């Protein structure tokens, strides 16, 4: 069990900066996810930790050891690859034993550890199979068993589920999570799938354009995004350009977004009156009454029934907004063309700086900060 520390890291490929100013501390035994769109630098960061890339600036620490000059094969990190990278010319047993043989373990130890690793990924009895006899999911289990078998200081996952079908992905992610907790090993997990990140992680670093945008628990990243990028990358969000107006009392403020008059949390130190407002589709209140503020009316442009929720695409004075209705009952999904109305509670509206996209938090308690 080892912590990982990244200090002022910078990595360039030719003229392009793949990573800059990356500072992270990943605690012992933590399941830490690097989340971001493709090309954001998350894989580069993982490969720098593994030693496949040498950073241009900054430090990488595994526990108390600074590993900048340690070649990849001496770093003792167990990596699980996106396309499995199971050796096609070896049996399942030989694959899992590979790293143990490199470490010159006794035959008895190798047998024992291979068996234990295969058991924890539910592949007992598959020792003699070759990879071409395995499904994608099974191959990835071999990849996981192989990485675990060497009892590495940290486990590194490079989008391990992206080549699997949807059902298997859910199954495997739960299994990865279970194995990691059982071993208590530090894990760094790269993914572009925000749902996957929310489910498996202890903490998430959201990365964009080579920079860490926010580090936090899944709850914080989703409910309290640090900037517009995090808000829109993690989960769905409705965005409105708005001008701040006069105070509305009780830590609230008026804002005008196009033709809509809204009341929003009064932000601390806005750099100007031009802001962006955001709210999540599930935060719209279905049944607006007189007590509710921010009641919006519009025409349903499109509606889709997704089982647990119905998603409505609503045209509000020329602005398209998406809201969700939970557990819709028969006749509750309005057809396109019908008019409807909903409310957005002020505390559900997040305010961002219009120019920088940085979050402008209210002076009083954070929006929706606790369990409702």
């Amino acid at each position, binding site marked *: 069990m080892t912590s990982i520390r990244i200090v002022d890291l910078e990595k360039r490929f030719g003229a392009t900066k793949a990573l800059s100013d990356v500072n992270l501390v990943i605690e012992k035994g933590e399941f830490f996810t690097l989340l971001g769109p493709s090309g954001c630098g998350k894989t580069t960061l993982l490969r720098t930790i593994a030693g496949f890339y040498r950073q241009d600036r900054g430090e990488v620490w595994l526990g108390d050891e600074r590993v900048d000059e340690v070649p990849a094969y001496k770093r003792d990190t167990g990596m699980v690859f996106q*396309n499995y*990278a199971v050796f096609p010319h070896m049996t399942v047993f030989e694959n899992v034993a590979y790293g143990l043989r490199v470490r010159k373990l006794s035959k008895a130890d190798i047998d024992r550890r291979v068996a234990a690793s295969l058991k924890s990924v539910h592949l007992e009895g598959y020792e003699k199979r070759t990879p071409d006899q395995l499904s994608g999911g099974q191959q990835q289990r071999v990849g996981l068993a192989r990485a675990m078998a060497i009892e590495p200081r940290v486990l590194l996952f490079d989008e391990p589920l992206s080549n699997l079908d949807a059902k298997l992905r859910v199954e495997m992610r739960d299994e990865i999570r279970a194995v990691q907790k059982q071993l208590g090993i530090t894990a760094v997990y790269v993914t572009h799938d925000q749902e996957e990140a929310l489910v498996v992680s202890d903490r998430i670093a959201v990365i964009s354009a080579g920079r860490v945008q926010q580090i936090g628990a899944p709850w914080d990243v989703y409910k309290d995004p640090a900037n517009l990028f995090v808000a829109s990358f993690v989960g769905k969000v409705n965005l409105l350009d708005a001008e701040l107006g006069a105070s509305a009392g009780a830590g609230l403020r008026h804002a005008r977004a196009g033709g809509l008059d809204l009341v929003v949390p009064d932000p601390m130190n806005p750099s100007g009156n031009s802001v962006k407002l955001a709210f999540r589709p599930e935060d719209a209140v279905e049944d607006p009454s007189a007590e509710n503020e921010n009641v919006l009316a519009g025409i349903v442009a499109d509606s889709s029934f997704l089982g647990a929720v119905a998603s409505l695409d609503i045209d509000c004075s020329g602005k398209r907004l998406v809201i969700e209705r939970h557990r819709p009952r028969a006749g509750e999904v309005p057809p396109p063309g019908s008019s409807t109305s909903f409310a957005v509670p002020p505390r559900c509206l997040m305010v961002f700086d219009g120019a920088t996209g940085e979050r402008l938090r209210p002076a009083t308690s954070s929006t929706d900060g606790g369990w409702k």
Partner: protein
Amino acid sequence: MSARSLSSAPRRADIWTLVTLGGFALVIAFLVYPLADVFRYSFTDKETGVLSLSNWAEFLSKKYYIRAFLNSMFVSLTITFFSVLLGVPLAFFTTRYRIRGSALLNTVAVLALLSPPFIGAYSWITMLGRNGFLRTALASVGIQLPPIYGALGIILADSLQYYPFVTLMTAGALTTIDRSLEEASENLGASSYRTFFRVTLPLVLPSVTGGALISFMMSLSNFGTPMIIGGNFLVLPTLAYNLFTSEIAERPGMASTVSLILMICAAVVIGLQQWASSRRKYASMLVNRPIRKDLGGLSSVLAHLVCYAIVALSALPLAVVVFFSFKNTNGPVFVPGFGLESYRQIFFDVPKTVTNSFLYSFAAVVLIASVGTMLGFVVARRRTLAVKFLDPLLMIPYIVPGTVLGIGYIVAFNRKPFMLVGTATIIVMTYFIRRLPYSVRSAASILKQIDPALEEAGINLGSPPGRTFRTVTLPLMKAGIVSGAIMSWVTSMNELSASILLYVGRTMTMPIKVYLSVLDGYFGTASAMSTILLVVTGIALYLVNRWTGKSGASVVVAA
């Protein structure tokens, strides 16, 4: 992730740094150094010995030289034309329609392609030469044929040898076109005729061009065929050879100039080929492989006729050679009856020639496979600045015809520090260097199909780079390396154009013996020796087939 190709090389020196350095040493000693001599000779005045353009001025001013250049262009272009004319229909019919025995047709075509580069020439002489049996037979019924010596003979022999390049590359493209593309065209209302010309042909055109350019390249640098059947019709390789070896007026400077002109032509052609193949990006999303259709009635008969006629014509010279090898001879004269006399002569009179050929090719192949694989790894996986310089240097032999390399070697290795002329080493090095770029390229392309993540997995699990290469990369490359090595062995066994300049009595090889026997009119010995070479080539092709489960065809194209 695209960044992977930029995978920054480790800063520490490892085994691959050593390989890169070794690659540079090899290229400088056995390529740059001898070719520098060719340059030096070409730009040195023969009288005064000072730097001068006199050789070039002479080349451009004398009809004799210009004619050889034009001859080269003429025969190469004509051969290319016929290669396409024969190669494309054969490829289309065998890949798109059910042709009985198409596997056999394929094998025979590849055998013709890989046969020693002059068997065709002298076989046509035995058929249509001055006393050729076909000519005599036809003359007896009143049909007079034009003389075979000269351009006609070269074109005949080489077209029938090189068309399989076009066939193989075109067939390769035709079998990897997604069937859905043609189906889409027909679904949109195009007739199958229109579909062929608007969809299929444009998709395979880059491959046809690629095959045609290889044919051009091979005929341009071919030495054996024009030497045997060319008569007074000089082309650039034979001109260079004559200028260099002529006992009356040895002209190394002029021979070097001709060599450089050959290399320039070859470089232009290679450039065109690279350009053509860089445009071949169509066959990427292969979902539905094309299927062979059944042809009915007359069209089936016609298609079979075309395919069998083409392949039979190219197999004819080989068959004639095998036939004559079993005919009894008395010195240079064939006498009635059949026997193993010609083979007996080889094994009793020149057994060393046979053992030399096997020994030298074997030694060369060991070098080619091991060095080529390691350099291929460096080229494919370690794109350091040094490797980016090394890569194009390694490709130089592509544009150096055998004759040119031979001239360079004689000049450079006939003095200190490398006194190699007359040794077996120089022959082995010739085979090795001539084949090296193919081996490096083939290793690199095998590596491109091996996910780098596999090697990273090995490294990540604690295995150092050398051990990872041995335990992960090499086993995955094995099939490709072995089949490539067998192909290299075949080409080394059949090498003539460089070794003809470098051999001495005790380092004579089979192709040289065949060539000399043909010159002396000992067709029996030549036929028997050629038959041995053919059988060896056939066995090698069979082995490649067994080893990779692919036909030798795909290996030829890959190489």
